[in-house]
């Protein structure tokens, strides 16, 4: 790249416009593809967008920090979107109230299962201690998972990536697995996806069914609370 092209590149990489536009384009392309294959959970638009963007950054030799400088505007909206989850939750108030006992028991069981199985499997397969610890809060929404990981002695930035991967995996394998297990109740489906795959699972559940989306959002919040309280206590007791 020389001359005017180089100038345009320098100009564009200094502002947020390019990273922001590319993020939206990559996601829209992924979403278009996802629609084309009948919303098959395996064609997750986040996976598509991440692969395209990582490839683009690697090819153009652009550091992640430069990309994030622009993409942070999209990232920021996670906060208000999390607050907005109160709306579907309120819409489903009667359903939530009716199954509150089963709901809380399922979330605590799921929270303990998620951490124990992730740690157990990684440890049995010989992962390093730092990786095992970083995996422990993998089903919890990113900011809390990073906090838990730091508290236990893991690597918070690795935990953030593992959390996103978990969300994508849960959104991909959760729905077919629930079909296989013949779980048809939208509340149980939403709850399971929300506990196992936090916000990415909730995003997927929300696109499919509002009841599932509301239960998934609730499960994400309560699972974060349960894991943040239980995991450090259990860890101290076991280690």
């Amino acid at each position: 790249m020389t001359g005017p092209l180089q100038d345009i590149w320098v100009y564009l990489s200094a502002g947020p416009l390019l990273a922001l536009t590319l993020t939206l384009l990559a996601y829209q392309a992924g979403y278009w593809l996802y629609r084309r294959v009948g919303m098959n959970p395996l064609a997750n638009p986040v996976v598509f967008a991440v692969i395209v963007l990582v490839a683009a950054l690697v090819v153009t030799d652009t550091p992640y920090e430069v990309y994030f400088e622009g993409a942070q505007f999209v990232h920021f909206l996670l906060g208000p979107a999390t607050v907005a989850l109160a709306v579907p939750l309120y819409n489903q108030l009667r359903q939530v109230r009716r199954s509150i006992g089963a709901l809380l028991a399922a979330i605590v069981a799921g929270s303990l299962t998620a951490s124990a199985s992730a740690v157990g499997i990684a440890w049995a397969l010989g992962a390093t201690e730092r990786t095992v610890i970083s995996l422990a809060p993998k089903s919890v929404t990113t900011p809390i998972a990073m906090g838990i990981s730091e508290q236990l002695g893991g690597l918070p930035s690795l935990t953030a990536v593992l959390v996103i991967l978990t969300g994508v995996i849960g959104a991909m394998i959760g729905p077919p697995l629930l079909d296989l297990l013949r779980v048809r109740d939208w509340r149980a489906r939403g709850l399971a996806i929300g506990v196992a795959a936090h916000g990415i699972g909730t995003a997927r559940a929300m696109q499919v069914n509002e009841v599932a989306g509301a239960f998934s959002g609730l499960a994400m919040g309560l699972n974060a609370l349960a894991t943040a309280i239980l995991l450090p206590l259990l860890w101290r007791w076991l280690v």
Partner: protein
Amino acid sequence: MLAFLTLLLCCQLAGELIVALVGLPLPGPVVGMALLFAGLLVRGGVPEALQSLAGGLLQHLSLLFVPAGVGVMLHLSLISDEWLAISLSLVLSTAITVAVTAGVMVGLRRLSPSPGDDGEGDR
């Protein structure tokens, strides 16, 4: 719409303040969600404009995880060193968690069914 966007941000800000002051092990936005939920309970309904704003934000919730997801490029070498343990742990543990959570929910609901309530809408 602008008024309700401001409301969402105010709930988030209040959530952050509460977390910082009380030292809760929760992120500010989750506390903000609880605050908005409490507000809706008190008011007894969701205003039309808030309903559509929330719908718009949540329809493409997964887009908002893309920037953090691209961060995977920072840990590619660490992940490739331990790829087998990491991938098996993530896939198996996520599947087990989905199965256990749904199993406990369905099992307990079956023990105490409430009348006229099947939770199975159109799929």
